[in-house]
């Protein structure tokens, strides 16, 4: 981030109103947002889901998603009002003057074409440089984005490279026609923290190198702090505040902005227990012929929370599947409350099933969309405890109160609930079985920061009241700090270390834990620069 950037105006959006059509009616998505961007400047756009930040980013190109329309406003890009251009005229700007980097690189590349062809397709359309020159340039871009085997990686198909690499290739694709503006739409949200660091630094250096202006959209304040010169906070389609990055972080004016990183302030004192609820010993497990768990041993103390952390593919969720019996282990044993559990789900008793419950990452897909809240929570009560009729209803209401909702929710369908409410219902469903152990598989990662905080507080409260034990699977270190007593670090199907939170989160670290912890973005805008300096030295 160089501070002496030119003050030449590149993009000026005035009073943008956008409506979207869903559920049979028009909703206001953006309600009069302004935005200015100078050449070579990076603006961070942050907010929760539904804040309209993505819509704003796309509107900067004069594009709206199908089902949305620009009602009012000017989008002056280099003196041209994009809102007034026809599709045909806009196409000459898209991809060449303004390019776009999407969130999910895996879904945004066409699976049928080679990466190189996709990288240079927009630049090819300009017909300024011949294809072989463009290809050479793309290889150089790949190199400066630190892609392995830059010479040949373009010959591969999208499914043959990893998510982090795809995201960098998409940045190369955006950069290939040397645009004046790049829109980054949550480009690292789907990546692991260790990969995120690489991608962030690659993006930042290349944007710096060509002095390209950018709009960086994200919900993660710590990430945007590393990238942006200025930050704009959106909520419900309106601007909350805007300031230079350093000012914003040191001195946020609005309550809402402060609340955005409140989850990071949630801290739980650690405790442990010599009495184990569950011990798994020397577990090996495999999907088909590919082995994913190697000699995994974990102890879960009674009434406490153990967080299992690791990147995707580290075997966290597989461990959960083995514990629940969904995936029988090849080797090793599971001791639950002093008794050995049979590996196969079918051979476990109803009582054993009742005592271990699981809550999933996506509450949307974990509930039957045609069942009401009453049916969803009522069924485990009936099934495990045999309680019916009036008593059952009283029990359902009691559970709803426990998760801070009330009986007005009884007749609602999952589609009539917000994301946070859905996850609460899933928690109530798990509690309805009156379990001793609940496995929480990334339960907060699909939720916004503020909602996350609510769910984490609720889980802590329930543990205090009911003494239930949690296994908390996550890749988010902030969540781990907030909720766990003990931490298990996993990497490539093996346990790297297990211990009390204070021990794991403080030096000395094993190499992998060090890498993982140091990759978690911090609010400090110099964090990435310092980290990269430290790693290269």
């Amino acid at each position, binding site marked *: 981030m160089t501070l002496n950037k030119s003050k030449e105006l590149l993009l000026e959006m005035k009073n943008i109103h956008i409506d979207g059509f869903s559920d049979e009616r028009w909703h206001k998505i953006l309600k009069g947002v302004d935005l200015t961007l100078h050449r070579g400047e990076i603006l961070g756009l942050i907010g929760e889901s539904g804040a309209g930040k993505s819509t704003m980013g*796309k509107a900067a*190109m004069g*594009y709206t*998603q199908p089902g949305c329309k620009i009602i009012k406003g000017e989008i002056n890009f280099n003196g041209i009002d994009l809102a007034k251009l026809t599709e045909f005229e806009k*196409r*000459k*700007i*898209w*991809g*060449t003057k303004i*390019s*776009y980097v*999407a969130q*999910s690189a895996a*879904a*945004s*590349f*066409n*699976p*049928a*074409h080679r990466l190189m062809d996709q990288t240079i*397709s*927009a630049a090819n*359309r300009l017909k300024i440089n011949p294809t072989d020159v463009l290809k050479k340039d793309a290889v150089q871009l790949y190199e400066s984005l630190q892609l392995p085997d830059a010479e040949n990686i373009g010959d*591969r*198909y999208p*499914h*043959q490279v990893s998510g982090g690499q795809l995201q960098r290739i998409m940045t190369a*694709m955006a950069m290939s026609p040397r645009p004046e503006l790049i829109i980054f739409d949550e480009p690292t949200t789907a990546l692991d923290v260790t990969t995120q660091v690489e991608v962030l630094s690659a993006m930042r250096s290349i944007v710096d190198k060509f002095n390209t202006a950018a709009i960086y959209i994200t919900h993660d304040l710590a990430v945007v702090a590393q990238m942006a010169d200025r930050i704009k906070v959106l909520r419900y389609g309106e601007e909350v505040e805007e300031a230079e990055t350093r000012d914003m972080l040191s001195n946020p004016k609005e309550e809402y902005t402060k609340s955005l990183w409140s989850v990071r302030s949630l801290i739980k004192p650690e405790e442990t227990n010599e009495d184990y609820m569950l011990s798994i010993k020397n577990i090996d497990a495999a999907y088909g012929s590919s082995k994913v768990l190697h000699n995994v041993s974990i102890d879960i103390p009674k009434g406490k929370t153990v967080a299992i952390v690791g990147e995707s593919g580290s075997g966290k969720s597989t461990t959960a599947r083995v514990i629940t019996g969904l995936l029988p282990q090849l080797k090793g044993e599971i001791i639950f409350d002093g008794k050995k559990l049979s590996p196969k789900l079918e051979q476990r008793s109803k009582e054993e099933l009742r005592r271990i419950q699981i809550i999933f990452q996506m509450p949307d897909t974990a509930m039957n969309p045609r069942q009401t809240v009453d049916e969803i929570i009522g069924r485990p009560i009936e099934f495990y405890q045999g309680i019916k009729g009036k008593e059952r209803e009283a029990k359902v209401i009691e559970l709803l109160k426990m998760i801070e909702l009330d009986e007005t929710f009884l007749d609602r369908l999952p589609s009539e609930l917000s994301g946070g409410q859905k996850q609460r219902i899933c928690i109530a469903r798990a509690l309805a079985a009156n379990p001793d152990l609940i496995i929480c598989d990334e339960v907060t990662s699909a939720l916004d920061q503020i909602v996350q905080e609510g769910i984490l507080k609720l889980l802590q409260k329930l543990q205090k009241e009911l003494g239930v034990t949690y296994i908390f699977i996550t890749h988010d270190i902030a969540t781990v700090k907030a909720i766990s007593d003990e931490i298990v670090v996993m990497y490539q199907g093996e346990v790297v270390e297990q211990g009390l939170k204070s021990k794991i989160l403080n030096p000395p670290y094993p190499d992998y834990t060090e890498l993982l912890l140091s990759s978690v973005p911090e609010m400090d805008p110099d964090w990435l620069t310092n980290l990269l300096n430290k790693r290269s030295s």
Partner: protein
Amino acid sequence: MLRLSLGLVTVFAFSVIIFSTFSFLPGDFATEILGQSATKSAVKALRAELGLDKPPVTRYFDWLGNVFQGDFGSSFSGRSKVQGDQGDRSREVVGLIVPRLKNTLFLTGVAAMLAIPLSLILGISAALYRNSYYDRSATGVSLVTVSSPEFFTAYIFILLLATLFPVFPTISNVDEASTLAERFYRTALPVFTLTLITMGHMMRMTRSAIINILSSEYIEMAKLSGASRYEVIVKHALPNAWAPISQVIAINLAYMLIGSVVVEYVFNYQGIGRLMVGSVYNRDLPVVQACALIFASTYVILNLIADLIGIISNPRLLYPK
């Protein structure tokens, strides 16, 4: 390889089914040919001559063994009734089927060559101009053509193009001596009928396969990188739609072959479909078996080709990680 052997199993199972269904039909060739008044001994003698007195399982395996040697046996109906006049006038099934098979393949081949490109073009353009009047009328008309039975479509064509405006002949009799131009002219109406009944389905599936893909993220990405509407459909959507499209084409080609049974009958065309209907009527088992086997293998082969296209057009299957 697995697909290939599965295909063979399917054909085999099919031949068993055909064979056993025939055993359940009332009467056999002997009773059918000698009529109601035949004496029991005459029927018995004919059965012995044709080998119908053996148990069905033995007959099936005899037949199967011969098929593997390329011998589909002799037709019952052409057989000499005079003892000792050993099979001079009897007709070999192969000799009976081959010219007719050629005719049918010609008919369906021409129809396919007309129907496939037409429905692809119509389907792609309907997807390109989705929800336009063109799209709506194309999908609407195709629904009508899909839902009309082939004999109905055939009679409409006869009414329009042979009776009201006598452009084409109603009877499509061709023989060895017919020239190619003559063949095209004579088979015009059955070709149109087959084209029309299969085109609707293919066109609609092409359209929906492409529209399905248009909602993917990489299509939005292509648009945002400045690709034109045409480029989005042809370069970005179509390559990913080949697998479902080739499946539906395979099904329709098979359907066309089966549809030719009715169409050949209507237009009195000397094809394999007509031969099969006649042979079922006569309980001429060797001919029916051979025809059925041909239909079944065509179906299996078409599906194999469609699977192959699906694999070739998908880099994920062609180049594993």
